[in-house]
């Protein structure tokens, strides 16, 4: 049974339809990526999964439980954690406090915090240097690291990442993807939204392609990488 199962999900903003009857699954231990052009509905899907955006129809199951209408904070307790797109940090809190917020929902946070913090600081040494600085004064890329690190502090079963490479230098993007694979090998299931289709398809077990709110293609990462129409549309290769 899949860890995450989305069935015929539709989401509207007022009368505007942003996501239309999307179905996808993520099995325990997988890295699955959702790619698509600007405005395709990727962020909307992620927000619906986290409970920030109400759904119009369809169902979301997590670990066998129907969470379609579950409150956002309870989904975190179930083990779903999202690193949101853009500047999703707490600007007035220090880097350290931002990271602590990641462990907010964990009952055993007092026991695990030190080790988890160490892990995040090992992954992102830059955050350690800046740990006392206010989140709002970090550079865009540093804020991006902070949202990823913060999501890890929750030790999620399912990690949702909305464009983790956005605004990062190419070298750092490479590192981030290595980190994601490492986290995944340590047992975290990942659903990854990306514009950077080449990288995303390279690390993903499976991928879905979203176009104006609907899934238009799916397959293993390597199959889609070799697909001529995908290459033309998303990888900029004729």
């Amino acid at each position: 049974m899949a860890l995450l199962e989305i069935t015929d999900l539709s989401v509207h903003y007022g009368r505007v339809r942003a996501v239309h009857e999307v179905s996808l699954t993520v099995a325990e231990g997988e890295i699955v990526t959702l790619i698509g052009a600007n405005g395709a509905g990727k962020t909307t899907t992620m927000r619906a999964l986290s409970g920030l955006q109400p759904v119009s129809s369809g169902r979301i199951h997590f670990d066998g439980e129907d969470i379609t209408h579950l409150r956002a904070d309870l989904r975190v307790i179930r083990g779903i954690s999202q690193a949101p797109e853009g500047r999703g940090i707490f600007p007035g809190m220090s880097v350290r406090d931002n990271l602590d917020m990641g462990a907010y929902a964990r009952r055993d946070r007092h026991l695990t915090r030190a080790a988890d913090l160490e892990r995040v600081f090992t992954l992102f040494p830059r955050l350690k240097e800046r740990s006392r600085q206010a989140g709002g004064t970090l550079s865009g890329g540093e804020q991006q690291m902070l949202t990823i690190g913060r999501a890890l502090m929750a030790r999620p079963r399912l990690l949702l990442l909305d464009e983790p490479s956005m605004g990062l230098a190419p070298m750092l993007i490479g590192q981030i993807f290595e980190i994601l694979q490492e986290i995944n090998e340590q047992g975290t299931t990942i659903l990854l939204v990306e514009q950077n289709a080449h990288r995303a398809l390279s690390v993903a077990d499976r991928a879905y392609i979203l176009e104006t709110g609907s899934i238009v293609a799916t397959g293993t990462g390597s199959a889609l990488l070799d697909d001529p129409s995908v290459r033309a549309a998303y990888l900029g290769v004729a």
Partner: protein
Amino acid sequence: MNIDFLIDNFADLSVTGLAQGAIYALVALGYTLVYGVLRLINFAHSEVFVTGTFATILTLRGIGIGPDDPVPSLLMVLLTLVLASIVAALSSGAVALLVERVAYRPLRRRNAPPLVFLISAVGASLVLMEIYALFLGRDNVRVGNLIKPRTQFTVFGADVTNRQILIVVSAVLMMVVLDSFISRTRLGRGVRAVSQNPDAAALMGVNKDRVIALTFLLGGLMAGVAAVLYDLNFGVTKFSAGFLIGLKAFTAAVLGGIGNLRGALLGGLLLGLAENWGQALLGSAWRDVIAFVFLIVVLMFRPTGILGESLGRARV
């Protein structure tokens, strides 16, 4: 203009101003807390405060301390103060929670636009006011005789009374407790998280509804204690007493930087001082005008208030 009077009585006016300002500051916290998480001015907060002023009077009556009775013994006074503070704080806190449940939460569920919240707030305020008028009358209600002001010491020629000391010390104490609750406890961090980024807070597992209710409760508790101090200071209250002090506390909150806890303290004290200095200078008829001139000027020239958003860590 009476500059000589202001200069001659500067120290006395300042001490009186600080005591009144401390009360404004405590009430201002309620506006600032709720604004911090909801970006909403809770206009019913003035009636939350009035609840406390009546709760205090009724507690004193229950103990048998009326307006014309002699002042009881010191021990009795202290016990009564503690009891009255608890009763007033809990009553105001309960009314604040009720307002949140009845007037705001249903609107949040429906994603109502901000103007609707404002109308609901004014409505809740009027309803509470009329309920108090119905049960407690439309006249002034006198407070039990609990403290006889006596000069304790003099600073720069100003007499400082036991009552003023009590007011300032209690207000500052309450604020310190609130400030450390917000910055040190897990729930307090939830409040800060929601005020800084509500969506991200939800992604951390913060229960937004609980945080919102908590800010109403905390604001109510502070207003309840402020109400006790107000009763002691002025000796009377009234069903409509919340209107003026509510507006002034709101001004204090905006002056210090709405959403900023320490700003509320600063704004309250400044407003209390300015009122008393200004009234000495211009005549007592101008007293209430001063607060509103402040409000308008701040909104025009520095809407983020004195501390504004600069105090990142102290922000709610």
